[in-house]
């Protein structure tokens, strides 16, 4: 087993990009993604990154360069946060529609306003429907591993879609923690050289990004949707073969004490670690509480999710973004529809927490569980639409 090395998670991410034999990095620095791209530009400057670091004037340009370089057949990487993603968002559905297997580390930060540099998931939820594969990781090791896993998924001939890896800003990106860094030998063969299906080249002219009239747009969308859904087995394959190699196994949903749980907390990203501690604490006190960690966000793992959650009486869903005027947090709404129509569905309660960097503690989880259990004694079927947990109501 490789040795655990202490490093900042952002640096581990940059290390993985270097080891993944990326040809082009195009990115614009923005807090809290900065340390990743700073390190990569250092690697490029002193020849450690066998590729090109393209400095650009904005995130819009960063994604434009990524599209161009991917189209020419280069393995490409980018990373951004919050407003940076907002600025590049015009191009995010394009990179996926062009079926370019870019990997992006999205260092999650709240969208302004009010202006906030801290962490939540409002940025990623704004591109939920962009047709990219999207997943969440919770610690430094998972960040490091998923750079390789991401390219393996993205570049499969039957996938060819961008993969967006979500990692929480600051609380994950800026933490110094142990990470096992793989040796080139250990990595050998996991990531075959990128074989693009089509490349832009003057000798073999072709057109990418042509427009579609009403006669074609629907078919194009249908084809894109089908390929995104059909990427599921390829995602599992990439995880399984990584698991065999490293002993670190990943699933679309990770379960902790879900089998016999009456109440299941559902969370995504690094919050799952605190949630796991809370669940262990409540288990010690004899409460039948479980944790369901949603790792794969797109394509949504409907089947696995329903199977894992079906036995519970209550689901407490953590959302870190608000869908204003809507039916609840984006994750909770998704889960309600995932469970629609099954027999005896669990009650689903939607809590919006940890907005704009607000600390979420073990005690917060305990409170949410207690509150939900008390309320569901009165109404076992329908859960609260949603609650923005911890917003100050009284002095």
């Amino acid at each position, binding site marked *: 087993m490789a040795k655990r*090395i*202490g490093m900042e998670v952002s640096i581990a991410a940059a290390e993985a990009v270097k080891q993944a034999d990326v040809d082009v990095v195009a990115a614009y620095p923005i807090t809290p993604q900065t340390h990743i791209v700073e390190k990569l530009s250092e690697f490029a400057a002193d020849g450690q990154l066998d590729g090109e670091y393209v400095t650009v004037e904005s995130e819009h340009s960063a994604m434009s360069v990524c599209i161009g370089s991917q189209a020419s057949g280069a393995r490409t990487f980018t990373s951004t946060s919050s407003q940076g993603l907002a600025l590049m968002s015009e191009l995010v559905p394009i990179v996926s529609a062009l079926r370019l297997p870019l990997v992006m580390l999205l260092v999650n930060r709240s969208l302004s306003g009010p202006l906030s540099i801290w962490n939540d998931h409002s940025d990623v939820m704004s591109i939920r429907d962009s047709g990219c594969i999207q997943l969440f990781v919770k610690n430094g090791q998972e960040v490091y591993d998923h750079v390789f896993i991401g390219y393996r998924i993205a570049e499969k001939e039957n996938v060819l879609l961008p993969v967006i890896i979500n990692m929480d800003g600051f609380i994950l990106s800026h933490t*110094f*923690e142990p990470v096992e860094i793989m040796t080139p030998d250990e990595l050998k063969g996991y990531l075959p050289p990128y074989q693009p299906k089509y490349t832009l080249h003057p000798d073999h002219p072709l057109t990418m990004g042509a427009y579609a009239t009403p006669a074609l747009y629907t078919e194009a969308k249908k084809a894109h949707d089908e390929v995104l859904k059909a990427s599921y087995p390829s995602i599992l394959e990439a995880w399984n073969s990584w698991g065999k190699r490293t002993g670190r196994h990943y699933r679309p949903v990770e379960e902790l004490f879900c089998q016999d749980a009456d109440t299941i907390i559902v969370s995504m990203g690094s919050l799952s670690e*605190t949630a796991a501690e809370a669940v262990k604490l409540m288990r010690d006190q004899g409460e039948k509480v479980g944790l369901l960690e949603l790792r794969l966000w797109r394509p949504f793992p409907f089947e696995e999710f329903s199977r894992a959650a079906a036995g519970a009486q209550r689901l407490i869903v953590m959302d870190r973004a608000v869908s204003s005027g809507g039916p609840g947090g984006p994750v909770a709404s998704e889960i309600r529809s995932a469970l629609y129509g099954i027999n005896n569905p669990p009650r689903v309660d939607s809590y919006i927490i940890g907005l704009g960097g607000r600390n979420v503690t073990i005690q917060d989880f305990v409170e949410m569980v207690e509150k939900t259990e008390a309320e569901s004694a009165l109404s076992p079927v329908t859960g609260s639409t949603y609650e923005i947990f911890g917003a*100050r109501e009284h*002095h």
Partner: protein
Amino acid sequence: MLEIRFHGRGGQGAVTSAELLAQAAIEEGKYARAFPSFGPERRGAPVSAFCRIDDKPVTLRTSIDSPDVVVVLDPSLFSAVDVTRGLRKDGSLVINTKKEPGRFMFHGLKQLAAVNATQIAQEILNRPITNTVLLGALVRLLPVVKVESLISAVQNRFSGKIADLNVQALERAYEEAQIISAGDVDIEKQVPCFQEKEPPEKGKEDKPCKEDLDYLWTELTPGCVVQPGSTRDNLTGDWRSTLPVMQKERCIQCGLCWAFCPDAAQVQEPDGFFSVDLDYCKGCGICAKECPTGAIHMEKELEL
């Protein structure tokens, strides 16, 4: 699990201390996590950093509100920040002070290590960066990690001469640190530096402290518009690590210090001379630079 909180000022390396300690622990095969209190960084402003060490994987990412150990990198912080907030009963304290260390003892504290870190850092590193110095004192007090592991973490982090000097500073602090245990001083007979803390309620140990801004959501203006005069509520005095000192004899009452002070911290007294409002002076030194007669000079912020 051992939880350690570091207090420093931006630029003193509090975050580096936490990371070096975590690095040393990980080198020894333990598990550790270190991270800063996240926010905009301002040189001189109080910052904190956190480190958790355990024999099994550390999974918590919340800030440390009830530490086992508190390390204070700068003596001026004792008056600016509640450094011992939430410190567990029988906890430990590691401080940078040139004062008699016994006076920092208080009921409920098990032990403390004191070292004149500013002096050691000045003499060896030629800069008041006290992070590696306090780590030397910390491992003398508590064998959290081996000294050798810390030294190798320092050598890993810095290169060449800087690494050597930091190792020297660390070793000297290890030698010079004064260790005081609970029984060593008669607490009743001294003016306490710290008040005894209420231990956190069971199960509430990780409750965050009350935040400075505690508006209710119903109290915010539409669009969070800020009314004029908001800097009045924002006491910038705790950013200060140096203090402007006036010599009346030289002052010609020209008012330039008042005019240039970016925080309106120079206040004219009835006698025509100017004095500094310590709630707002952030120690930038502009007044000293602009004063035409040299009536103002900057001094290091006082300890306590």
